[in-house]
């Protein structure tokens, strides 16, 4: 029998920008078991949210994660609006959709770059991040900040877009489309990319469903679940169909995200073209009372907010279940059987966001 050894992976690891610690049990070069250990960036945000009032919390939850920040705030605000029975004006719903999709583009490009870095494709890393600057600049033009938009508030959004800005958005989308046309066919057909990703870290549809996989991990295994299908914000009016692949390996997960990049551009364009006029926010009245579970789709998958108000300014309980938290269990099913050198690629293929996970 091969000799067993235990290798710690992380928390400070060249491939991971974030501290994730995995204990890998190996037989020679093959992983037989993986055990995650987290807590390196646990802050205790849920407790802090009970101490701030529900308007301030929108800024706090945005800082759960710097990559999908806007969508965190959106989920939170939708939950509070449901508790307050607020009707959000249509223009605000469309603007929220536009910013959500911009975040998704920036997140997927960021992930693509990191993945490329993990398997040693430096050129692709740089190309992806250069394309990403385009959308980050666009966020700065429209919202005033590169990452933490701070644009979603209870009752709507905080800033309106002028017609020129909307035109600039459309122009940027065309520019991004051209860049994707350069980049994406190359990645999908590249020999070395296929060598590294095909058949690696495969999980079946059943395992993915049982283990509660969400987002691109689930969709790459054939689970057609994308919370945008339920039509929150303005998604119901834009004709949304989830992207699904069936292979369930790292390559399929990449295919899903790359197809979603185009889909995001399409959604932004559709939202901008259909943008209704009118007010962008309503003033919240009263205090949240009762329980509500608010869910939306982040770039990494479905995020779940449990909100409980007690009729006061402060919330009784705020719980955040982030997509990476749900995807750790499927990750533990992917790792056994793979080779040690593939571990970084597999870990990155779920697009881990540890700061989300630990809050």
């Amino acid at each position, binding site marked *: 029998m091969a000799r067993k050894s235990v290798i710690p992976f992380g928390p400070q690891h060249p491939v991971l920008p974030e501290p994730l610690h995995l204990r890998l049990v190996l037989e020679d070069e093959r992983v037989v078991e993986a*055990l995650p*250990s*987290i*807590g390196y960036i*646990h802050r*205790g945000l*849920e*407790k802090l949210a009970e101490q701030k009032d529900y308007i301030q919390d929108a800024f706090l939850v945005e800082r759960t994660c710097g990559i999908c920040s806007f969508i965190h705030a959106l989920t939170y605000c939708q939950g509070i609006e449901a*508790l307050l029975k607020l009707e959000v004006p249509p223009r605000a719903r469309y603007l929220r959709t536009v910013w959500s999709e911009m975040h998704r583009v920036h997140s997927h490009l960021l992930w693509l770059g990191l993945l490329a870095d993990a398997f040693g494709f430096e050129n692709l890393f740089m190309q992806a991040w250069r394309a990403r600057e385009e959308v980050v600049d666009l966020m700065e033009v429209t919202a005033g900040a590169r990452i933490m938009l701070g644009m979603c508030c209870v009752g709507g959004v905080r800033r309106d877009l002028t017609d020129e800005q909307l035109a600039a958005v459309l122009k940027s989308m065309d520019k991004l489309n051209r860049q994707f046309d350069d980049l994406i066919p190359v990645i999908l057909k590249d020999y070395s990319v296929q060598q590294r990703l095909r058949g690696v870290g495969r999980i079946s549809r059943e395992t993915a*469903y*049982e*283990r*509660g996989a969400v987002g691109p991990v689930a969709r790459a295994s054939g689970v057609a*679940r994308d*919370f945008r*299908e*339920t039509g929150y914000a303005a998604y119901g009016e834009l004709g949304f169909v989830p992207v699904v692949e069936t292979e369930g390996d790292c390559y399929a997960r990449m295919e899903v995200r790359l197809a979603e990049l185009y889909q995001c551009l399409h959604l932004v364009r559709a939202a901008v073209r259909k943008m209704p006029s009118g007010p962008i926010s309503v003033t919240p009245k009263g205090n949240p009372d*009762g*329980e*509500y*579970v608010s*869910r939306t789709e982040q770039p990494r998958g*479905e995020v*779940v907010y*449990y909100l*409980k108000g007690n009729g006061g300014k402060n919330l*009784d*309980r705020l*719980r955040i*279940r982030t997509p990476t*938290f*749900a995807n*750790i*269990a499927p990750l533990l099913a992917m790792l056994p059987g793979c080779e040690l050198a593939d571990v970084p690629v597999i870990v990155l293929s779920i697009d881990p966001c540890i700061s989300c996970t*630990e809050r």
Partner: protein
Amino acid sequence: MLQNCKDVTRENLLTEVASRLPLGYRFVTMTCVDLGDAFDVLYHFDKNYELSTLRLRLPKGETLPSVSGLVFAAVLVENEIKDLFGIAVTGLAIDYQGHFILADGAPTAPLLKNPPPPTAPAAEGAPKNG
């Protein structure tokens, strides 16, 4: 106001959970709420974007039976509840012994409404040259 909520007891929790899985329910997450003299432990399931919740009212001091034997995905969140609320969970598939999220020196059970005072003497400034 919580969508599709159903009360369960400690005794029929496992059978209720087990009966949902063959129906195609997917485990979403668990939430624990401190009510003062008891905990609300909520088990969220999802089927076709419909949320369905089991609510377990757990008096303080009682142990929580783990559902991780049925739903492996629950193991992480059960460990988290154990850490953050100080609830003893029995039958965990992987037990982190209360160090899943919190390290030595961190406050114990910080998410309780009245968290216990820090017991570790070196809680403040513990990391000095650590």
